[in-house]
């Protein structure tokens, strides 16, 4: 589903954050990317999500080479990926009610009417009732907002879901609820998952395999922790 080959990436003119990194996620596979803060795992996730242009290397999505990132990526490639970020408050437009937040990708792709039922079903699956859906981000808790952000990421039925520290700010019960929602979706759609985080136990329990990085932005050998 996703193949990153020889990716080197960074910001401005600084030293690269990610150096010559390769990674592959098969169809339906759940891969965890584990590493300490600042090791470059979020940058790699942004490259994989087509949100950051790498300095070198190639990204292949469903067998097709990606030719541009961000708005230059073709729509069918952009919409094949759903992304959930660590801090929902930075990833949600503060002006939108949760209902509109979840439906944002449908409106952006001109499919608002077609996906209205799906948006409602996802909100329901995320445990967000009608009263919460009328509220704006500042009127709900982090956990409730992250539920909405996850529902938004699943709306267009992505074939690859990228979760960048999705649960780092959340309590144990909300974490388990969001992971269960992701896994229900993956079971239903056969989607692949790239989960980035620093919680070894969580990723080990959630993913098919976990790849660990050291603090230098490089893979720590070939250590793979596979779920029993």
């Amino acid at each position: 589903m996703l193949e990153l080959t020889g990716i080197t990436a960074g910001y401005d003119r600084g030293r690269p954050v990610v150096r010559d990194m390769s990674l592959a996620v098969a169809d339906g596979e759940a891969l965890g990317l584990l590493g300490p803060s600042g090791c470059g795992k979020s940058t790699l996730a942004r490259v994989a999500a087509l949100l950051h242009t790498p300095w070198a290397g190639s990204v292949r999505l469903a067998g097709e080479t990606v030719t541009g990132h961000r708005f230059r990526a073709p729509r069918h490639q952009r919409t094949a990926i759903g992304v959930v970020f660590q801090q929902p408050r930075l990833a949600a437009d503060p002006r939108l009610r949760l209902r509109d937040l979840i439906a944002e990708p449908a409106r952006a792709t001109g499919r608002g009417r077609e996906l209205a039922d799906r948006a409602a079903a996802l909100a329901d699956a995320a445990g967000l009732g009608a009263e919460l859906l009328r509220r704006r981000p500042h009127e709900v808790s982090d956990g409730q907002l992250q539920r909405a952000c996850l529902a938004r990421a699943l709306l267009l039925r992505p074939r690859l879901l990228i979760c960048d520290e999705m649960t780092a700010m959340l309590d144990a019960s909300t974490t388990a609820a969001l992971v269960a929602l992701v896994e229900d979706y993956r079971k239903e759609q056969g989607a692949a998952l790239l989960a980035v985080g620093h919680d070894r136990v969580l990723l080990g329990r959630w993913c098919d395999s976990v790849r660990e990085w050291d603090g230098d932005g490089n893979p720590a050998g070939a250590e793979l922790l596979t779920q029993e």
Partner: protein
Amino acid sequence: MTPLLSVRGLSVRFRMPHGRHVAAVSDVSFDLAAGECLALVGESGCGKSVLTGALLGLLPANAQTRGSAVLPPDDQHAAPVDLLTVGERALARTVRGRRIGLVPQSPAAHLTPVRTVRAHLGETVRALTGTRRDALPPAVAAAAERAAFPADHLGHHPHQLSGGLAQRAATALALVGDAPLLLADEPTTGLDRDLVDRTVAGLRRHADEGRGLLVITHDLAAAARIADRVAVMYAGRIVELADAAAFFGTPGPRHPYAAGLLAALPERDFTPIPGLPPELDALPGGCAFAPRCARADAACAARPPLDGGVACHHATAPEAADA
């Protein structure tokens, strides 16, 4: 032994537009002794951080508080101080930083972005200890060292600090006034495991040196490593108050909510508690957890008191939580 902090019947309500009220904290009581760490755990939005704000007088103007939160007499104060009634002037001059140190949530965001760590520490040292300007450099170096903040990073601005170093800078600031009581609000949120371990070990050391430590967190793994006692909050109330060893080990939590929270950990069952917590402006009349509780019955229509460390009529015996 006289506790360092004695909280009785503390409630915080926020007045909202259209006559609404949000009951953020309801009838919370606990004691905290010197050398003890109490972890206050619960889901986001359960009122944990509002409780910290109430203790430090940092609530917004629409907050109404009830109850008491008393610091005992000490060398400088002949009478006990009730934090809820003492007033802003006394809090600013005698309590914040001097009797209670705060390690804030998101320390990097708490620091002033245009000032260096040295400038932050210098200002705090001068304000709290009256150190003269010419004696500041060694005092700042000593303050940094107490929280293991590296001296060669004192000239850095907050955005140049890693999460761990920002945490240590905030802890150094909290320790300047030698406050006997430390409040740490979500000290491990967003940190990776190594940093969590180091932060937890650093905070525990301060408790072992004789300070009282109130840690507010949703990170149960961190709470298990640092706390002597655990208070579980749900919808603004403490629903279980227990020794940490018994809570995280055997016999385990007794309240169904606490048991569900612990079972949700990935190292345990990894199953969420069904449903969402109630909205604090529309709390049910009886047990607030009843709508999510598999064992709810007619008796849950009455609000259970915190009796014997647990606020649930199901949990009379420790084994009940396992049933």
